[in-house]
């Protein structure tokens, strides 16, 4: 089975060294900056209307893309894996574009007419539809890049620890954050074992004549049950064994436990935290004060 995205890539880099808790914060901060609506107000026939500020959006996505690219280089990650997982994106964006052309999602078009479709009663298509689809595309690409950056440079174990750390305040309301983290960590550890099981069972079933590719939908589903049921049986028996092994090694979810791995904040963590927090703060401030860089630079609003 081929899982390229979401895999840890074991190389040495500054990104790999950043504390996982800080990395999760940075991911959220940068995502917020990507997903905020950058709008401005224009006057149409004496009525104030809020429209998307395309120039500012483009500038922000450009800056974010540049930051992500630099981070990719710093983290010594290959773009090839990213591009290969972006294949399905083109199709999504194409469908989105068609939808945006047919059902415009802007309040007022600001980018002008792209073309008219005589066959459809002179249906006017504005550049705004293209910009809207482009915005979704860039948001998706940036999201993929950011999550790829996180999962490729952080071990599953570290991620689990970070989740546990963020969930730990919920202990006040009796939320079992340590147990949840333990469950996630075991589930991640057992993925390769279960994939081996899938391979073994599918070979065993194929040797008895089961087919997972041939036939219609019905046959495929029936074929799949012959894979899934033994897999579940095996997973349950494994989980029982594992539970026994954990009990025998004195695991008590309610008892006091110490931790083998030490996580301490370093200077690089502080730097990463401040950088991302500043970016997010900047983005939020720009929206709050309705910052208009192009107006102030050129004296007129360009777009």
């Amino acid at each position, binding site marked *: 089975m081929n899982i390229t995205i979401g895999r840890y890539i074991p190389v040495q880099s500054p990104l790999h060294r950043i504390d996982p808790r800080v990395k999760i914060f940075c991911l959220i901060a940068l995502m917020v900056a990507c997903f905020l609506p950058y709008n401005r107000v224009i006057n149409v026939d004496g009525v104030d209307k809020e429209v998307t500020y395309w120039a500012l959006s483009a500038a922000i996505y450009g800056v974010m893309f540049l930051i992500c690219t630099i981070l990719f280089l710093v983290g010594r990650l290959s773009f090839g894996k990213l591009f290969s997982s972006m294949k399905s994106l083109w199709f999504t964006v194409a469908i989105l574009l068609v939808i945006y052309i047919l059902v415009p999602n802007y309040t007022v078009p600001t980018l002008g007419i792209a073309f008219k479709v005589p066959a459809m009663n002179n249906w006017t298509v504005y550049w705004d539809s293209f910009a809207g689809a482009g915005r979704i595309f860039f948001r998706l690409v940036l999201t993929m890049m950011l999550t790829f950056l996180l999962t490729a440079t952080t*071990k599953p174990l570290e991620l689990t620890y970070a989740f546990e750390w963020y969930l730990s305040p919920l202990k006040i309301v009796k939320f079992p954050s340590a147990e949840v983290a333990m469950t996630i960590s075991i589930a991640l550890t057992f993925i390769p074992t279960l994939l081996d099981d899938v391979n073994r069972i599918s070979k065993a079933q194929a040797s008895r004549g089961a087919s997972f590719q041939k036939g219609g939908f019905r046959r495929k589903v029936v074929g799949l049950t012959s894979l899934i049921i033994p897999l579940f049986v095996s997973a349950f028996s494994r989980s029982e064994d594992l539970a026994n092994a954990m009990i025998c*090694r004195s*695991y*008590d979810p309610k008892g*006091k436990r*110490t931790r*083998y791995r030490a996580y301490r904040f370093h200077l690089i963590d502080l730097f990463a935290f401040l950088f991302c927090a500043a970016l997010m703060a900047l983005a939020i401030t720009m929206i709050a004060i309705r910052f208009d860089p192009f107006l102030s630079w050129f004296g007129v609003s360009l777009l």
Partner: protein
Amino acid sequence: MEKAIEVNGLSYSYQGGDKKALDGVSFSVDRGSYTCIIGHNGSGKSTLAKVLIGLLGGFKGEVKLLGEPLNRRTIVSLRRRVGIVFQNPDNQFVGSTVGDDIAFGLENLAMPQSEMAKTVHEFALATGMEKELEVEPSSLSGGQKQRVALAGVLAMSPDIMILDEATSMLDPKGKGEIDSLIHKIKKSKPELTILSITHDLEEASHADQVIVLNEGKVLLSGEPSAVFEYEEELREAHLEVPFLYRFIRALKQEGIEVPPSLNSLESLEEYLCR
């Protein structure tokens, strides 16, 4: 001599099962000894291991570990002194890496973090896994995983270590490694009681005591050389006496007496050629 394990009239039947998995089992194990429990599949030997580690409650009879009766009240404190290595290498790997797995028991015992790294390294070294501390289980062999399991149990410094068919799912190389590792551990920790549950009679021939289980009952018990005298009884319990002991028995039938202390083909060869 002080007893590590005392079992008196132990019976156990699984829910819904009409047959008793264990039926009036009695035996005792000396402290610091190496005891093998042998038996065919379904003889009740794995059930016995589960009872001894406290995974199966509701048994009849008396079980004493390290002088303390095993019951609901003592189970948690006794588990800290009794370790077990199970059969399946995949299904007892709790941590995400070798180091985390060795540390798992120590984390549960709330050992301070500063001591833990040292202890983990010490037992990784003892089991030859010190270079793999950061390795994930999916890239380890079965034998390596069992070595990690041994390290994890030993790190908790138990008084009794139970091996529940710890080598039965390994290839010959892995099995050989684990067997020699167990002998090394036995030598370096003479006070550790080892109870090995196995169907490998070759391994049992190195034990201080052998207990043969058949259909939930103790069929034979005693020193290996004495137990292996009962070739017919063992065969009826679907167990094959190792070649060495069959050979010694054949020699006896020919009127050649061999001292019972011989427990390897090499020493026998030396004795006969003298």
